[in-house]
């Protein structure tokens, strides 16, 4: 049953502009050298952080299409009628969102890292850091989308909510790219796990509150 929900959301995302966040990610990464100049050493120093800022801003784009269309069209009501809990819907949406957001972003990180002048060891650290962190970004996006569904200007409000919540993740994730020591990566993984564990419950409660 959850498999059907995931398949539906993946299908809808692929048709509904799943490539947009990836393009946006690359654009932001490409903008940084223009803003700070082409100095290779400066770029290599800030590259990891810039890559994560690009990932974070790209994560904002899909917020408005994650939950609100299903609320407006009564799909959430129909799922509830069939005894499917808000948490189950949230887990399905998080998995589906990551599938259409995480792997494409990892692929885009390769040219992105080249634009920012990251060398090969840094690129590998960046890929690991993004692989660990993007599931948490997907979970945050679904939670925030559930909280803001049905509100006027929900997408903008979603951005305001998501960015501060993602800051702990951003700190450790960017550090994990810059620092060869594994400490930051472990802290990033812990933060990501915490977000992943909590988000379905936040989202489930928000979906229940939507009905009243």
């Amino acid at each position, binding site marked *: *049953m959850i498999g*059907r929900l995931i398949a*539906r959301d993946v299908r*809808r995302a692929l*048709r509904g502009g799943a490539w947009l966040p990836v393009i946006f990610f690359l654009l932001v990464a490409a903008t940084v050298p223009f803003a700070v100049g082409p100095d290779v050493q400066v770029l290599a120093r800030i590259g990891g952080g810039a890559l994560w800022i690009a990932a974070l801003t790209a994560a904002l784009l899909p917020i408005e299409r994650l939950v609100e269309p299903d609320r*407006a*069209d*009564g*799909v959430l*009501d*129909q799922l*509830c*009628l*069939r005894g499917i809990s808000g948490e189950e819907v949230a887990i399905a949406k998080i998995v589906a969102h990551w599938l259409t957001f995480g792997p494409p972003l990892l692929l885009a990180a390769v040219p992105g890292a080249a634009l920012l002048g990251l060398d090969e060891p840094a690129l590998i650290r960046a890929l690991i850091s993004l692989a660990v962190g993007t599931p948490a970004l997907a979970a945050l996006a679904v939670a925030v989308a559930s909280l803001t569904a049905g509100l006027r200007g929900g997408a903008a409000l979603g951005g305001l909510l998501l960015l501060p919540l993602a800051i702990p993740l951003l700190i450790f994730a960017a550090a994990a790219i810059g620092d060869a020591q594994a400490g930051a990566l472990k802290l990033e993984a812990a933060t990501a796990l915490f977000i992943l564990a909590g988000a379905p419950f936040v989202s489930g409660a928000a979906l229940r509150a939507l*009905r*009243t």
Partner: protein
Amino acid sequence: MLFEGLDLALTAGEALWVRGPNGAGKSSLLRLACGLLKPAAGTVRAQAAALADHALALDREQPLASALDWWAALDGGSVADAMAAFDLTHLAEVPVRMLSTGQERRAALARVAASGASLWLLDEPVSGLDTRSVELLGVAVTKHRKAGGAVVAASHVPLPGGEWRILELGG
């Protein structure tokens, strides 16, 4: 507070026509019956219900048959009979977003019919339907009641499909 002191029991084969002015709580009663809303006081016990309200709840970019089939697969039913019952078979390959208002209504009713639920909750089921479609709804309702199902419908106009018990809200 929309209404209080409402005591209602519906048995197999029965149909209830909920009437009342706008804002009397007809739609809320339907949502209470299927558990989407919780009553402020009292209890609701009901069989598994299928709801057709103002929301279509079908994926717009999908062909009608696939969109209906997605729900039927969750319910373990099949859509062919329901689509035939509401004269939608020839629209099977048409994307849901291309349907007219009346066709959308019929699609929502077919979604309910395909669900296999014993309690049908219909919010304004005949609005937007032409005379022939109203007849089709009558046939479907009669068949559902004969099979031991029950129907609750909120409507401003008389409904087809046999005798309806009337519940007046906010009158």
